[in-house]
C-alpha cells in the first residue's frame, strides 16, 4: 500500500505492483486449486506407500503396493482393457468430431440447430445415457429388434467393452466437434481464397490446408480425448454393476481403483493404482506434445 504515496514510479516497481495485482486476482482460484487439487494429488502419492484405511495410516509398506500391482492379474487386465479402449476410441472420436465440425462450419440452413443437436449428448448425464443404452442394447431391446437378433450386447464379453466404446464415441463427439469448430474458425479465410484461385477442389483443400492448419486443434483434442478415455469409469461401472464383467471385459483402471478403495477399503493400494494411472497419462501427454510439436516445426 505504501506504493501509493509516490508520485513518480520506476518501471520496476510498477511491474512488481502489476504482478502483485495479478496474483491478487488469481489468489482465490489458485488457493482452491492448490488446496483441492495439488494437495490431494501429493497426498495420494504419500499414502500409496502405506497400508491406509479410513482412519489413516496402518502400516508403512515402502514400495510393496507397487510390487503387488506388478503381479496383480486383475490390474493388468484392467490396464489392458483401458489401453485397448483408448487406442480405439481416441482416433474414432477425433474423426467423428472433426467431420461434424466441418459439416456445421459450412453455411448450412439450420446450422445452429445442427450444432446444438450434435452437442446435446455431451450435456446429458453419462449415467442417464448409459441407463437408456442398457435398454436399447438389451437382448430384447431396440437394436436387436432392428437387427433381428437377440444379442445381449453388454452381457457378452465379446461386445461389452465395444458397446461402451461406441456409446462414448457418440456422446463425446459433440464436445470434440466444439473444440474443432473453434480451431476451424481460427483458420484465416485468405488461405482458402488463395487455394480457390489456384483451382484446388474442396477435398484437396481440406487435406492440404484445413487438416494441417488444425494442428493446435489436433493436439488439444487428442490430449483431452486420451485423458478422458484412460479415465473411463461410469459406463463401465453401470453396465457391470461394478463387477467389471462379463469375463473382466469392462474392468477398467478407474473401476479397479474404485473397487479397491470402496469395496476392499484399501486406500493405499488404490492410491498406488491412481499414481500409475497418473504416470501413464502424464507420459502419454508429454509424448503427444513431442509428436505434435515436431509436426508443427516440420
Amino acid at each position, binding site marked *: *500500500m505504501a506504493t501509493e504515496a509516490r508520485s513518480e514510479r520506476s518501471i520496476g516497481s510498477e511491474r512488481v505492483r502489476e504482478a*502483485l*495485482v495479478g*496474483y*491478487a*486476482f488469481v*489468489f482465490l482460484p489458485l488457493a482452491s486449486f492448490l488446496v483441492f487439487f495439488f494437495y490431494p494429488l501429493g497426498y495420494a502419492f504419500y499414502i500409496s506407500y502405506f497400508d491406509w*484405511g*479410513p*482412519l489413516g495410516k496402518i502400516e508403512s509398506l515402502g514400495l510393496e503396493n507397487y510390487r503387488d500391482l506388478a503381479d496383480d492379474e*486383475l490390474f493388468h487386465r484392467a490396464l489392458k482393457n483401458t489401453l485397448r479402449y483408448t487406442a480405439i476410441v481416441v482416433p474414432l472420436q477425433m474423426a467423428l468430431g472433426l467431420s461434424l465440425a466441418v459439416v456445421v462450419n459450412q453455411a448450412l440452413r439450420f446450422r445452429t440447430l445442427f450444432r446444438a443437436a450434435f452437442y446435446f449428448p455431451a450435456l446429458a448425464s453419462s449415467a442417464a445415457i448409459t441407463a437408456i443404452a*442398457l435398454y436399447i442394447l*438389451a*437382448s*430384447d*431391446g431396440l437394436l436387436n429388434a432392428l437387427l433381428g437378433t437377440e444379442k*445381449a450386447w*453388454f*452381457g*457378452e*464379453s465379446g461386445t461389452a467393452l465395444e458397446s461402451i466404446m461406441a456409446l462414448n464415441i457418440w456422446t463425446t463427439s459433440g464436445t470434440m466437434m466444439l473444440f474443432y469448430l473453434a480451431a476451424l474458425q481460427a483458420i484465416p479465410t485468405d488461405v482458402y481464397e488463395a487455394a480457390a484461385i489456384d483451382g484446388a477442389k474442396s477435398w484437396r483443400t481440406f487435406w492440404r490446408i484445413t487438416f494441417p492448419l488444425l494442428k493446435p486443434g489436433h493436439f488439444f483434442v487428442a490430449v483431452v480425448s486420451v485423458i478422458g478415455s484412460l479415465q473411463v469409469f461410469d459406463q463401465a461401472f453401470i453396465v457391470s454393476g461394478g*463387477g*467389471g*464383467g*462379463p*469375463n*473382466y471385459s469392462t*474392468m477398467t483402471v478407474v473401476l479397479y481403483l474404485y*473397487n*479397491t*478403495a*470402496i*469395496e*476392499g*477399503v*484399501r486406500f493405499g493400494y488404490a492410491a498406488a493404482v491412481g499414481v500409475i494411472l497418473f504416470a501413464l497419462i502424464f507420459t502419454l501427454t508429454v509424448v503427444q506434445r513431442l509428436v505434435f510439436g515436431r509436426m508443427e516445426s516440420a
Partner: protein
Amino acid sequence: MRTYSLLIITVGRGGRKRVKRGNVSLKLGGLVVVLILAVSIGAGASAGKRTKGQGPAAANAPSGTVTLSGWSVGATEEKLLKQVISAFERSHPKIKVSYDAIPNYDQAMLAKFSARRPPDVFYVNSEKAPTWIKQGLILPLDSYIKKSKFAVAPFYPKLMTAFRANGKTYGFPKDWNPLVLQINTAMLAKVKAKPPKTWAQLRSVAQKLRSAVPGGKPLCLAAEWQRMLAFVYQNGGSVLQGNKPTFTSTKVRQAVEFYVGLQKSGLGDQASKLGAGWCGEALGKEKAAISFEGGWVYPYLPENFPSMKWKFFPMVKGKQAGTLAFTASYSMGTHSKNKEAGWELIRYLTGRTGMKLWSSKGLVLPARKDVKVKPPGPSRAPLLAAAASARAWAWPPGFDKVWTVANNELGAVFEGKQTIPAMLKKINDEAEDALN
C-alpha cells in the same frame, strides 16, 4: 490479513474512491468476525450436545438426537422404517431420530468414517462387516449389551456370526433374507409338474417347463457365486475351512458342474440373456419359470407384474439342505457421537417390538426367533424354514476381490471361455492371496 489487503488493492485499482476501500475492508473484517463467531458457537453447541449424551448425567435416560443412516431403499420400505422410527420416538420421548437414506452408501460411509463423523446408528451389510470391523470403524457393543441386559439368544445364531469378530459383537441383524425358489405357478400347472425338491427333480421339472416358457428358459441362472454357492452348501461343500480356501475340492466342483450344467443343457440362462436386468425381472416378464432369489422379490413382483402368478417354494436339496442368507446389521461407529441414545435405538429396532413392526409388512424376515408375523402376500413359510440351513454371506476382509474374480470367471464359464477346474483353481489362488 494479508489476503484481505491484497483484495482491497484490487478493488482500489478498479477505479473506486479510496473511502470505499475502507468500507470494503470493514465489511470483510466484519464478515471474518461473524464467521469466527458462527464457528465457535457451532462448536460450542455440538460440544454441549455431546456431554448431554455421554457425560455422567447418562445415569438418567439417554437423550438428544440420534442420527440413523442406511442405503437408499424403495418408497414402501422407507415409509415403513419411518413408522418404526416414530413408534420409537413415542416410547422414548427424550430421543429424537434424524434418519437419512444415503445413496452411494459404502462410498459415503467411508468418507464419514474418515472424517470421524459417522452417523450414530447405521446399516452394515454382512458382506462389508468383517472389513469394516477390521479397520476399527465399528464399535463393539458388548458393554452396552451387558449394561442393559439385552438378550442375544433370540437372534438366529447364523446371522449373528456375520457381525461377530474376536469374540465381540459389532451389531445386531436388522432382518434377513434367504435364497429360495420362486416359481411361476401357472406355468408349472400348465405342464402338470410339481415344485422340485431335489437336484434331480429340478432338472426334470425344468425339462418339462421348456414348452411353457416361449422365448425364454425354464430357469433364470445368475452367473454369480451369490446364487451358486447355495448349491455348493447343498452338496455338503464349502469354499473356506478355517483360513484355507477349498474352492478346488470335489464337493465344490460337483455343485458347480450341476449349476453350470443346467445352463449348458439349455435349461436356464442369465437374466441378461433373457432380456432382464436380474432374475426377479426375468420371472416377472415370464422369460423364466423358476428363479433363485429371496424375499426381496416382494413387493417388486406384485407391484410390477400384478397378473403373474407365483409363489415361494423351499430351496431344492442336494445331499443336504443348504442356502445362503443375506443380512445387514444396525451398528454404531467407533466415532459416533451420541452412543448412549444410539444404543437405545438399536435395542428398540432389533428388539421384539421394533422387529415385529419392521417385519410386519413382509418386506423382510425377522432376525429373531421370538418374532412371529403374518405378512401380506404369498406365504413366507419356505423362507422362514430356511433359517435352519442358511449360511450368511460374510467373508474375511479382502474377500471382495475374490468374488469379483470368481464372478468374472463364472461368467467366462457360462460363455464357454473358461473350464470349471481352471476357474476353481484361479479363484482358489486369489483367495489364498487374500488370506495371506
